């Protein structure tokens, strides 16, 4: 047993998982005190954001940080690993989680007063955060499964709690599909273990290379399928536009921001580490093209603003898949940058949609109108993330898309063709979002419709927007603008992350130690 030299920052690695878990426990015990629950939630997420920031700076400076749990060095023990990609996504995800929590708390206070809180919301919210952190930080395939389960179980509760007769079927679809993908993940783990005898990712990297190529391909496709369901890549995306729109506003924003991107992160991690390739991956190029087009065209057909955003979410997963499919350092770097931007902007748009729905009382676009006159600030709040998602210069979306396009154009004829599809999908996105703009903000103001579902928790059709909800959404817009403002340093970080991911050596040496058995 060769204990890896203790990393001075290793103790920090467990905290993004432990703090939300402890916070969840405290919020369960203190469920009679809404104020305690709220303070604990915000403090924990602030602390995790700070830790993620430190991890990003340290891992960018000195390479991946490894924490062998229980003192057992990998590959015998379970290791937590923070490299540039995982710390960057952890930081962005936690900031989004924090902003959405502030929004949810303000919504609750505005609608029900300061004295009430739900007993389940805060614990489950923090559990979900713990699961997301663990998924980013783990260096072990089975722990990744556990992380997904923590995250998904919390999400099942969040999407179905206080559900109404109208919305329960959406929860059922979501739970069933997620359960199926989890069982398939477990099957994939069993097959991987049967073939290689390990579930440690770094150890697997060496052992998968020794397998017959056919077997390695099958295992790679199994994992692609599993994470494809979670990341909503076409044709495995059908559950997403069906379930997310029926979740309460802040929950939909959280899911849209985080869950699919965690699936994409797992896909990048496993494919780059375990199944390296030298050329662009044709299969994934085709899937990326289909995802971009089906998502964007599906969005055009929608009349429900949340469903429209859900289809755009699917479409933009295709952009990231394209980055992974090209499979070189520049493209993977572009995909990482795109993921960071996508987490922020989708969460923002769903929060804005929540604010719009609050004023109009409906999610149907043809029943809205004239918000530009009645709520001009809301229009500004919608316009900025919409332009960002469409990738209009000089927003963060443009920076990320440019990185992807440059990498694609440099990688050969087929990636160049798909890069053209990226541009088409971006224009379709712009068109879909402009339709929302025309329907919602232009035209004659219409009176708010009464709440069509008074049973559920979310009140809609009120004519005022509480200032704190507005501020929380604006905070996310600022994060998105900051990604554009600091595009230089960020691109440099993701560039180094991309090189590391494709090179694999920094990760392997950090986890297994230079004296490891590779």
């Amino acid at each position: 047993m060769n204990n890896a030299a203790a990393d001075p920052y290793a103790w920090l690695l467990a905290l993004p998982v432990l703090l939300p878990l402890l916070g969840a426990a405290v919020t369960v015990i203190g469920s009679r005190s809404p104020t305690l629950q709220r303070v604990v939630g915000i403090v924990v997420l602030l602390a995790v954001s700070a830790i993620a920031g430190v991890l990003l700076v340290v891992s960018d400076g000195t390479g991946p940080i490894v924490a062998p749990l229980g003192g057992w060095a990998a590959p015998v023990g379970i290791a937590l690993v923070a490299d540039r990609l995982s710390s960057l996504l952890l930081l962005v995800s936690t900031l989004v989680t924090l902003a959405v929590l502030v929004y949810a708390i303000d919504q609750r206070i505005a609608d029900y007063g300061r004295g009430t809180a739900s007993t389940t919301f805060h614990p489950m919210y923090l559990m979900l955060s713990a699961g997301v952190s663990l998924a980013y930080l783990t260096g072990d395939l089975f722990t990744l499964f556990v992380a997904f389960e923590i995250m998904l179980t919390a999400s099942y509760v969040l999407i179905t709690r206080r559900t109404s007769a109208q919305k329960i079927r959406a929860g059922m679809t979501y739970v069933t599909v997620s359960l199926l993908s989890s069982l398939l993940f477990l099957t994939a783990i069993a097959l991987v273990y049967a073939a290689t005898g390990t579930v440690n990712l770094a150890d697997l990297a060496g052992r998968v290379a020794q397998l017959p190529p056919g077997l390695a391909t099958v295992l790679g496709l199994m994992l692609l399928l599993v994470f494809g369901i979670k990341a909503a890549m076409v044709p495995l995306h059908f559950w997403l536009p069906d379930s997310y729109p029926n979740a309460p506003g802040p929950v939909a924003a959280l899911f849209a921001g985080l869950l699919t991107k965690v699936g994409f992160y797992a896909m990048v991690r496993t494919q780059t580490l375990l199944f390296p390739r030298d050329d662009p991956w044709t299969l994934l190029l085709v899937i990326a093209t289909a995802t971009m087009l089906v998502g964007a065209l599906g969005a055009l057909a929608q009349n429900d603003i949340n469903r429209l955003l859900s289809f755009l979410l699917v479409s933009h997963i295709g952009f990231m898949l394209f980055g992974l499919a090209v499979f070189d350092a520049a493209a993977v770097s572009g995909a990482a940058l795109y993921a960071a931007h996508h987490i922020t902007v989708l969460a923002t748009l769903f929060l804005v949609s929540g604010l719009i729905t609050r004023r109009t009382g409906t999610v149907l676009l043809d029943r809205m109108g004239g918000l530009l006159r009645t709520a001009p600030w809301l229009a500004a709040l919608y316009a900025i993330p919409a332009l960002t998602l469409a990738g209009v210069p000089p927003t963060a979306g443009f920076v990320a898309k440019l990185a992807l396009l440059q990498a694609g154009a440099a990688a050969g004829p087929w990636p160049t063709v798909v890069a053209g599809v990226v541009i088409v999908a971006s224009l379709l996105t712009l068109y879909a979002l402009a339709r929302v703009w025309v329907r919602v903000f232009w035209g004659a103001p219409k009176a708010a419709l009464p709440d069509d579902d008074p049973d559920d928790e979310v009140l809609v059709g009120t004519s005022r927007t509480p200032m704190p909800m507005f501020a929380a959404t604006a905070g996310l817009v600022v994060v998105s603008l900051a990604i554009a403002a600091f595009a230089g340093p960020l691109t440099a970080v993701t560039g180094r992350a991309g090189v590391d991911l494709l090179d694999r050596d920094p990760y392997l040496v950090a986890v297994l130690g230079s004296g490891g058995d590779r």
Partner: protein
Amino acid sequence: MTTINVAMALTVGTLFAAGFYLLLQRSLMRVLLGVVVLGHGTNLLLQIAAGPPGAPPVLGTGNTDLITDPLPQALALTAVVITFALTTFLLALGYRSFVLVGHDEVQDDVEDRRIATQTMPSASLDEDHDHVERPGADSDDDAGDDETGGDETGGDETGGDEPGGDETGDVEAAAR
């Protein structure tokens, strides 16, 4: 040399087939049974993965030929607990659905159907890929009614019985 345990392989295969078949049913109760059966199949597969070629991560001395690989058993234990927890959750969800709508059938997506019946040019694409996922999606359960056992009404497009369905009904009527 690795040998294959045919009996185990057949058992796992049967469990997977039965599990997937049940998952494709509309009633949440059958879906639940499907998850249980599929979970058993997966855990059994994890056990088989513990066979001799597993290079057991056992420290110390002793005759490793006699020791089975303990790791998959630990993994299966974790997986069993998770599957169990989710089974109870699905049970609760099925019961909730029963309380709310009188049955535990997974309903059609109303908005999907509305778009599918639209005659907009862009709607045809949506129809294609959404309807592949749900064969037989052309039925409409009246969810507000307590006495329905979730009978499929097969192809009839009356969306007016949905709760809040006055909106969808209007739009559908307009589309037709």
